[in-house]
């Protein structure tokens, strides 16, 4: 069994009186694709925000490669290799596609302030290298042709891919995908599945929230089911589909 990459230990989050995430624990192993499912409002996105460091948990701990990262702000988690996409696209709309992806690359390229504002040779060298990496990531997703386009002008499906390229450019060890397929048509969804598998094959561990059951069940090796902030069960897609509690929630919800 592979090494544990991320370990979530008894984590809770409440907003005022509302308990959004209630005592959840699970592990993710290196190289895995894991999915979180659950009805709307079951706390999936909140859980994501806790892992990425955008929210601080009310109690519990998170370990990444055994390091306690519970109190880390998002930028610090990002710098050790936790990268994410957002449910409602969060592209930098005032920049071009490649500049968005460059934001991911910059996580690992050290840029000197003086060499940047005076445009010293070192700046051009680094900029060139960074752009090559960015183009490589865009090509991986098959969208290198739109590199110079403004993000705000792109159709929704492409924006999703750009966001994924941006997350990948940060060379993550753990990639958090928040509803990557929402808003995509059937053709794009199939492509997305291929891309996600390809990313995993390159050694990136993936945790995703996804409503589309076909995608979830075909991609994920393990699934966690949430309901009202609690973990209902965890297991392989087959086990999940047989679990009476899960059936009750999903059929009960219609």
């Amino acid at each position: 069994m592979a090494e544990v990459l991320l370990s979530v230990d008894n984590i809770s989050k409440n907003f005022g009186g509302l308990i959004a995430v209630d005592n959840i624990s699970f592990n993710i192993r290196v190289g895995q694709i894991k999915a979180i499912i659950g009805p709307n409002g079951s706390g999936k996105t909140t859980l994501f925000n806790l892992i990425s460091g955008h929210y601080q948990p009310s109690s519990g701990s998170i370990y990444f490669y055994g390091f306690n990262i519970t109190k880390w702000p998002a930028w610090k988690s990002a710098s050790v290799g936790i990268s994410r996409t957002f449910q409602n696209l969060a592209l930098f709309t005032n920049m071009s596609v490649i500049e968005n992806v460059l934001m991911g690359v910059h996580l690992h390229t050290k840029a000197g302030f003086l060499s940047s504002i005076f445009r010293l040779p070192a700046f051009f060298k680094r900029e060139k290298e960074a752009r090559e990496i960015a183009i490589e990531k865009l090509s991986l997703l098959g969208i290198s042709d739109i590199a110079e386009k403004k993000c705000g002008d792109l159709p929704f499906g492409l924006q999703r891919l750009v966001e994924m390229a941006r997350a990948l450019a940060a060379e993550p060890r753990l990639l958090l995908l928040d509803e990557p397929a929402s808003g995509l048509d059937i053709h794009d969804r199939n492509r997305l599945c291929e891309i996600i598998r390809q990313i995993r094959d390159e050694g990136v561990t993936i945790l995703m929230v996804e409503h589309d059951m076909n995608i979830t069940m075909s991609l994920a090796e393990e699934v966690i089911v949430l309901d009202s902030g609690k973990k209902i069960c965890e297991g392989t897609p087959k086990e999940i589909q047989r679990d009476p509690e899960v059936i009750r929630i999903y059929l009960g919800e219609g």
Partner: protein
Amino acid sequence: MGGGLLALINLRREKIALMGQILQFLFSGLTNGAVYAVIALGFTIIYNATDVINFAQGEFVMLGAMVMYTFVHFLSWPIPVAFFATIICVSVIGILVEFFTIRPAKNADIISLIIITIGVSIFLRGVAMMIWGKDPVAIPPFTGSTPIVFMGAAIDPQIIWVLVITLIAMIFTQWFFKYTIWGKAMRACAVNKKAAKLVGIKVERLVSLSFALSAGISAAAGAVIAPITFASYDMGTMLGLKGFCAAVLGGLGSGVGSILGGFILGILEAFGAGYISSSYKDAFAFLILLIVLFLKPQGLLGQGEVDKL
């Protein structure tokens, strides 16, 4: 023995003088505080209805004072008539301001909206200067000017008027929001505009109403404070900013908070000016603002917000 008694009497005198001084500061603090509270309430009403921070709020106060002056001085209307006519006039100006500037800029971002209200403020100040000139004007006090002596403090009767009228304005707004259908709709609007629209609330009319209400109470504050401070075309800027401080202090968006913030600000300012330094009087309000923002950014009664991702 005799010397001791004299000392005792002197001590008592000093004590009375001290009491008087404290009361004097307290009353001056309450007076300014009441005005700040009403302006802050005006800010809050518009903020809740539109998310706009209205930098022209102080100008409504100034217009209240100036229009009052016109009615009393040029038209010789009796004070009660002039007072209510002033409120109605400035409320109408409030509605016009919203209709011509905020409404057309529906999709503007927050910075643009702030700049628009700044433009309105400059414009109104310009108009006021054109109509009433640059010199400050005096408005007669509502009921004479013989000071009332109370526990060693001399109190201008106009101060009583300020306290009474601002109190009525506060109670009126609270009543309006709690018990009238319009007020309830406005509260619904403040919480969730889309949902309010869905249940059939006409948001646009409510926004007009909020400007009318906000301008009206600010004008009342201006009209009643003018006999104490004089009225001039540029009196609104500082008052508006102080009201804004009070609104933040209490917690932006909270009505009770802004009233509380106004009074706290007024009293702290009065004692700060009295005991520390009068030349830095205006700085105290903003120093308090900074301290509150850094220690408790959501204000005394405001609610913290959660980022939506």
